[in-house]
């Protein structure tokens, strides 16, 4: 090798080493910033304007509610110092806690509560149910609100303390009174965090900082109830779409929590001693298979029932989640382990398919082999695979299945189409809800049998609706249990939908950095400590 070349090689090597030293990680000051990759990008900021889950999570960061549901499913006062109900259960009085402040430094008053509940009551289905019985909602004084009912509605607490969208967040009256058909122009809440609008970059990052003026309750935090004590200075939601990129970020410490790892990544995550898999949502995620009740062939109850028998929970859950660690068969419409859950489903739902029974029933229905269009959203990881198994089981029972794959946007739009499948409609799709949304027949969106006003599929059944109304008026836990079971049996017999079962998606967490995660209905970031 010539001298010139040797010198050149040596220089390059020196430069390379210097470059590496320059480019190696430097130690930064430890600030308490919790970095989380959420399951979706936050796009809709007004939690009254949408039922999208990530917008609800965002709502709970910056707003507060009169009641909150604890981890055991019990509704507890949150913004309230006290509440009481008259002996005839027609008059409810709510008294606000001291020290509640909105982020614009104005105190939370009874007038704000009234305006907020009025806005929410027009937007939310359960709220509409409740307000169907409200004759008067008034602010008695700055801290007291009185609600007068026309009948003893049995789910006042469950409605005001519901965790699911649209949650009854309390906002300033001036914002709550704004036009319903437009989003609120500002995000002013009294919650444990403040939203940093100036640092918000859709598709990139959402930033919250600790609300120093928030006064948490004294009780320990549990679910969405108790003391929402914030132990970090800042929470950043970092938007990373690619599953491998998410894992890399977690492994290198660029993020602390990955809310919803892909099921394929679980084995690798489990094998990493620095990563913990923690499931905070004990009620899991419930997958349901929904029929189109208004177009052939599922407008025929026998065909729907045949499909119910053709399906089995275990194959669909195993296809979707892989390992039994992350799913559970649950033969009830209500998540197993919750108060109303019962395996008494009339024999329509089982872990394994009842193929022979399904075939016989399908034959007796007169089904002539019309194609069944089954929609598959391929870009929603929590739901993309189960339709494949559903299609196979339906085919084995004699259905002519046309599995159509599409992105979520096309899927969401297609299922609003009420035409027959050959004209752009559909026959079957699978959907997923947080288990905490399905605790009773009123909060369960797919148990409504209100036809055109109901969930996609537009099931109509007067008897189911009568039973749901009876449930709403039940006053004791025993009555609710009894009527809840009746609703389930009737809805199963009518084949409103097929409950596929529960999936559990643990959060992946850097063990050395993060502790204090709170169990409940959804991931929350108060209570969490960052080392």
């Amino acid at each position, binding site marked *: 090798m010539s001298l010139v070349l040797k010198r050149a090689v040596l220089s390059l090597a020196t430069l390379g080493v210097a470059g590496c030293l320059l*480019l190696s990680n430097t130690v930064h000051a430890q600030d308490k910033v919790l970095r989380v990759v959420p399951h979706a990008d936050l796009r*809709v900021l007004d939690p009254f304007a949408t*039922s999208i889950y990530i917008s609800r999570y965002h709502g709970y960061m910056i707003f507060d509610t009169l009641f909150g549901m604890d981890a055991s499913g019990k509704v507890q006062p949150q913004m309230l110092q006290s509440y009481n109900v008259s002996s005839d259960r027609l008059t409810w009085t709510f008294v606000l806690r001291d020290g509640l402040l909105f982020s614009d430094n104005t105190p939370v008053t009874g007038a704000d509560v009234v305006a907020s509940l009025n806005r929410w009551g027009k937007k939310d289905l359960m709220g509409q149910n409740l307000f169907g019985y409200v004759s008067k909602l008034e602010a008695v004084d700055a801290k007291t609100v009185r609600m007068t009912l026309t009948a003893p509605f049995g789910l006042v607490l469950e409605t005001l303390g519901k965790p699911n969208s649209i949650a009854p967040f309390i906002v300033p009256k001036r914002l709550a009174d704004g036009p319903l058909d437009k989003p609120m122009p500002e995000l002013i809440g009294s919650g444990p965090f403040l939203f940093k609008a100036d640092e918000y*970059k859709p598709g990139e990052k959402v930033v919250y900082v600790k609300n120093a003026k928030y006064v948490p309750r004294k009780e320990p935090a549990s679910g969405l109830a108790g003391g929402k004590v914030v132990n970090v200075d800042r929470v950043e939601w970092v938007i990373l779409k690619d599953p491998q990129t998410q894992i*890399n970020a977690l492994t*290198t410490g660029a993020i602390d929590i990955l809310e919803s790892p892909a099921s394929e990544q679980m084995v690798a995550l489990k094998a990493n001693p620095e990563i913990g898999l923690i499931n905070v949502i004990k009620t899991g995620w419930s997958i349901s298979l929904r029929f189109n009740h208004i177009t052939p062939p599922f407008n025929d109850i026998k065909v729907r029932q045949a499909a119910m028998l053709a399906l089995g929970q275990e194959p669909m859950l195993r296809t979707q989640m892989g390992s039994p660690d992350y799913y559970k068969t649950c033969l009830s419409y209500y998540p197993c382990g919750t108060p109303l859950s019962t395996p008494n489903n009339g024999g329509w739902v089982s872990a394994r398919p009842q193929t022979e029974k399904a075939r016989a029933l399908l034959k007796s229905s007169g089904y002539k082999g019309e194609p069944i269009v089954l929609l598959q959203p391929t870009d929603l990881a929590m739901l993309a695979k189960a339709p494949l198994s559903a299609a196979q089981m339906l085919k084995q029972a004699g259905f002519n299945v046309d599995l159509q794959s599409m992105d979520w946007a096309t899927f969401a739009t297609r299922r609003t189409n009420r035409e027959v499948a050959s004209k752009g409609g559909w026959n079957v799709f699978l959907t997923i*809800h947080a288990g905490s949304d399905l605790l009773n027949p009123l909060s369960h*969106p797919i148990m409504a049998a209100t036809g055109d006003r109901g969930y996609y599929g537009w099931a109509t059944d007067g008897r189911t609706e009568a039973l749901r109304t009876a449930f709403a008026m039940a006053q004791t836990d025993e009555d609710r249990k009894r009527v809840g079971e009746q609703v389930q049996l009737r809805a199963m017999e009518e084949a409103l939908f097929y409950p596929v079962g529960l999936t559990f998606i643990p959060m992946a967490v850097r063990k050395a950095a993060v502790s204090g995660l709170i169990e409940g209905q959804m991931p929350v970031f108060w209570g969490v400590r960052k080392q």
Partner: protein
Amino acid sequence: MLMLTLRRLLGTATVFLLVAVLVFLMLRLAPGDPAVLLVGDHGTPEDVAQVRAYLKLDEPLPTQFLVWLGNVLQGDLGRSFYHHQPVSQVLLDRVGPTFALAMVTLLLTVCVAIPLGVLAAWRHGTWLDRSVLGLSVLGFSLPSFVLGYLLIWLVGLKAGLLPTQGYERLGTGSPWTTLRYLILPAVTLTIVYTALIARVTRATVSEALTEDYVRTARSKGLTELRVLFRHALANSAVPIVTVVAIGIGMLISGVVVTETVYAIPGLGLLTVDAVQARDYPVIQGVTLFFSAVYVLVNLLVDISYVLFDPRIRY
């Protein structure tokens, strides 16, 4: 030159109009309603109708198009359904990372690919030539996400030398911080583009080396370095510049996979997100922007031909 520029600008107006019509129609005809996505799973038909009215999607298509086009002509690309700000602001916010990535990639590519191509042409038929050819086949055969994951694993995870994802905008930290985030994605892209440009350089320089003027230059006693770069390469510049220019256009508009793998909040990721969310104003704005980039790059390339080859006249 002036006439060329003027003719091109006139042609650009036609291109933009065609692009505008096409992208507008394709979006409206494609399945997926942004209003349905915005209201969420439990939205009622009334909620959807309200949102459509709010976004003015309930107006007749010709009206929507003319209003949008009229605004575009006044420099207003509309307002994103999701970003809560004007599309122009969204583009400005996202063009920085993509442009930075493109420039670093371009610089690395030109510094590596052209000398490699020249060397391969100079040592045509030898192990050096075959190595360059082999590496270039490997370079553009390997999908960029595979390359990306390999580099992330080796450099980011195993060696811990560089960040595996993310981006720090210029101005928020030191320039070195920004550069650290760009190195791996730029190297990923450089490998692919080097493969292409090295091959083109090799082919054109090989041809140039057989020309009489090269024999003359050598016989005059010029050094081989001067013959290669001052004579052979200079006379091969036109096709090389063309390929580099096409690369710039592709880098600005097509680095979706790399931006996704490395989580760089650039135009590629913006486009994917906007398509998935059916954010019509952003998709329309981004498409027009990409058209403008291609038109501008083509114009600059055509002008550069005059600099590289004085025989070319417009």
